[in-house]
């Protein structure tokens, strides 16, 4: 992905040896990355409480581990990886409540579209939501998705194809039902 990812304070950090991150550096990183990660977690779980809890835990683990120096894109993928692993841990422990309603009222998206979206999201499996979200909302390529999920790039290609086909089928079914 060629897109630049401006995180103030992160690139200078990556250029030197990673030592203890200062609070200002962390705030800059957090401001630049927390919103898309929260959206991802909300999109995958559909639960605000879980998404917020996992978001906090993701950054805590990042700070505690203090990984080797990374550029902004690596940092972003690393954060997505931690978040994805934390979600899987929760599912393994049995915290697998189905996707729920998290949207706010009074948004500019029309009601029919909102219903389509929610029905499709609910019908997809968490793994499918993860892959589709990273590919189509975050704009990650297969290699980046593999890095963010711990899967192999070839597996990502096939799983993403299946997930996309399923989602397209669900959307088609929803629209023809209306």
């Amino acid at each position, binding site marked *: 992905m060629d897109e630049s990812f401006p995180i103030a304070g992160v690139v200078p950090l990556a250029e030197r040896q990673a030592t203890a991150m200062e*609070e200002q550096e*962390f*705030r800059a990183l*957090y*401001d630049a990355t*927390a*919103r898309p*990660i*929260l*959206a991802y977690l*909300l*999109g995958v779980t559909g639960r*605000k409480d879980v*998404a*917020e809890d996992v*978001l*906090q835990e993701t*950054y*805590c683990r*990042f*700070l*505690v581990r203090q990984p080797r120096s990374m550029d902004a894109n690596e940092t972003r993928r690393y954060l997505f990886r931690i978040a994805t692993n934390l979600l899987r841990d929760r599912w393994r422990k049995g915290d697998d409540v189905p996707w729920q309603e*998290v*949207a*706010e009222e009074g*948004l*500019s*998206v029309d009601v029919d*579209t*909102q219903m*389509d*979206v929610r029905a*499709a*999201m609910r019908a997809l499996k968490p793994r499918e939501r993860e892959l*589709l*979200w990273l*590919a*189509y*909302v975050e*704009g990650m*390529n297969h290699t980046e998705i593999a890095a963010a999920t711990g899967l192999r790039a070839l597996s990502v*290609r*096939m799983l993403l*194809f299946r997930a*996309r*086909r399923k*989602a*397209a089928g669900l*959307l*088609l079914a929803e629209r023809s039902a209306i």
Partner: protein
Amino acid sequence: MNRILCERESDVVEALRRDSFSDELRGHVRSCSICAETQAVAQMLQTASRLQVEHEPSAAGLVWRRAQARKKEIALKHATRPLIVMRAMSVVYVVFSAAWLLHYFWRPGSIGRISGWNVLPIETVFADVAIAVLAMAIGAWYLLRDGGRLGEGIPLT
């Protein structure tokens, strides 16, 4: 064989993200079933993303403080690891010493052998052994108690 990928997929996703479809890309999407599918699904997900735009992440300061507390907790665990090892060693030492003493004094004639050395009066030997055992027991008890307090999260100071 059915295709599962189109090289223009990423262009479609990017165009949707930036909301800037070129006429050429529109034409391609109309003629490519994979890109049409990609467009439909990406649009759905980006709508889902917009539905969540109102949600604010927790304050950075809160997460920072939580991480600092976690770091301290981990540092404390690392710092007390030698104490835990010492505690285990002292327990093993007490058990073995007690077993050895019991075994030694249980045998008939052992007291006579000790007094036969004629180095110290028998009372002194007994007193020394008793003090050593008592000291070991107190040390072990102290470490066990301290370790228990640490486990409950009570600070050292």
